[in-house]
């Protein structure tokens, strides 16, 4: 026994099901006029702007399997393979095979195209469209009442659902973030309700008290405990969370985090912070630094979790009544995604091998 039991078949189904959802793959402003390679759900994808549109293709030239991401954009709207110069359009159709200029292009000469979108400062890809859910919402993005900052992207050696569950978990704050977000003398999590709608799980949860001044590091005595409003969490399936912390005097601090399942055991997280107060950009570094402190504490433990994947089978780990309510509801939803993949497999067995 090196880890809690993992239902391997169930996990495979989940990862098949996740192909039908939008996932963030990179920051939009990191995609200029050159193609970029990303990995999503274990598969290599090339992302490129062609004719002003974001295009995502399988990163594999149909001719010799070379990566199209090391190719280049020509005429502003076509992607040319670096190896033999085969040239593809936005749909992934090969338009030109330079070694045989007169030859008609075979219909098979095309690469798999995926759905791609640019949204809230990120590039999103869905490997098997149409997407099962719309792109997640980030209401503060573009709202002039809020100052939105980027938190540096980070990679953790864990499954994306492990990363999400850590983000929405209140019970760990007093121990893992002692003196920052909680205090071990007051570790109890008050009862909370989870509401499910078409695409989200919503709940307001939190500890009754926390140290000093939330979301700001300062020299205050961390042993001083102050009352705290519950945090409003919105999980947008499968791997996005919007968090809002109400503060006194109408202040509101929000976080938007969205996790890319690079592989089953590697997660890249993109996140932004938004605040309707203290909007001087000169103060941003302090907020970023504060996040960094918390994230390093989380990473240290989350990367030890075994299995690295979040077990879809609820019985694999032990859940505590009210406290783990959100986690249990989230795992049940992931299990539904896995089941829907199984039904799809029955309908279209030829796609199962991908």
């Amino acid at each position, binding site marked *: *026994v*090196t*880890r*809690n039991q993992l239902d391997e078949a169930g996990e495979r189904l989940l990862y098949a099901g996740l192909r039908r959802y939008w996932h963030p793959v990179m920051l939009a402003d990191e995609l200029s006029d050159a193609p970029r390679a990303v990995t999503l759900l274990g598969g290599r994808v090339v992302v490129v702007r062609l004719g002003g549109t974001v295009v995502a293709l399988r990163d594999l030239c149909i001719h010799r399997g070379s990566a199209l991401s090391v190719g280049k954009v020509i005429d502003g709207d076509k992607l040319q393979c670096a190896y033999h110069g085969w040239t593809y359009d936005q749909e992934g159709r090969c338009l030109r095979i330079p070694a045989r200029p007169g030859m008609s292009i075979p219909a098979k000469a095309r690469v798999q195209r995926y759905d791609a979108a640019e949204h809230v400062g990120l590039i999103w890809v869905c490997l098997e469209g149409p997407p099962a859910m719309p792109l997640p919402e980030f209401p503060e993005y573009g709202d002039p009442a809020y100052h939105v900052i980027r938190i540096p992207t980070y990679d953790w050696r864990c499954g994306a659902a492990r990363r999400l*569950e850590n983000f929405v978990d*209140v*019970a*760990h704050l*007093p*121990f*893992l973030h002692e003196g920052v977000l909680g205090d*071990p003398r007051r*570790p*109890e*999590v008050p009862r909370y309700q989870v509401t499910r709608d078409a695409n989200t799980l919503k709940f307001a949860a939190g500890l009754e008290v926390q140290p000093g001044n939330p979301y700001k590091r300062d020299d205050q005595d961390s042993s001083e405990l102050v009352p705290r409003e519950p945090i409003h969490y919105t999980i947008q399936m499968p791997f996005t969370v919007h968090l809002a912390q109400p503060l006194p005097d109408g202040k509101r601090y929000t976080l938007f985090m969205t996790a890319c399942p690079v592989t089953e055991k590697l997660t890249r997280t993109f996140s932004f912070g938004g605040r309707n107060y203290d909007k001087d950009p000169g103060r941003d570094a302090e907020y970023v630094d504060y996040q960094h402190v918390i994230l390093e504490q989380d990473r*240290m*433990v*989350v990367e*030890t*979790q*075994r*299995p690295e994947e979040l077990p879809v089978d609820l019985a694999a*780990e*032990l*859940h*505590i*009544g*009210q*406290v783990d309510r959100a986690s249990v509801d989230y795992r049940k939803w992931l299990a539904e995604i896995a089941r829907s993949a199984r039904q799809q497999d029955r309908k279209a067995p030829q796609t199962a091998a991908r």
Partner: protein
Amino acid sequence: MMQTIAGRPPGSNELDTSGEARLYFAMRHFWHPVMSSADLGDEPAAATLLGERLVLARLDGAPRCFPDLCVHRGSALSMGWIEDGQLRCRYHGWTYGPDGVCTSIPARFGGVIPNRARIRSYLAAERYGLVWVCHRPSLTGVPEVAGGGGQGARRPGTGRPGRSGCRPQKGGDR
């Protein structure tokens, strides 16, 4: 003509992998040294034995050994700390006693600890300046060294007495 194993062509020495797996499983019935006594202080320590991640901790004065896996969320208990003779998980603060039974779930406002809230405990012992672990009911004792070497044995090279050799505790391997 040369013999082949399971139809494979002769080449390098062949490993009978299922036989190896059985051998390694059988090894769980024997005592193995996992670390120097001196490396197990007041903090939990991680070790790997036969491919399994273990946590070692001195609880109630004796070395204890468990799978390095909190039953709640699978996090490594070796990241935690020892508090009042209990091993505390760093993630959510659950504590485990010397027998691996969970004694505290801090996030709740009191209540009964569920029966499932326990981790297995393996046999652990300290001899010759080393910490020894055996997963299963042992077939043998900790290997004997001629001239004694149990209680009060000197650790090689240090000239200092080793920590007292303790008897393996019973009741492990649930």
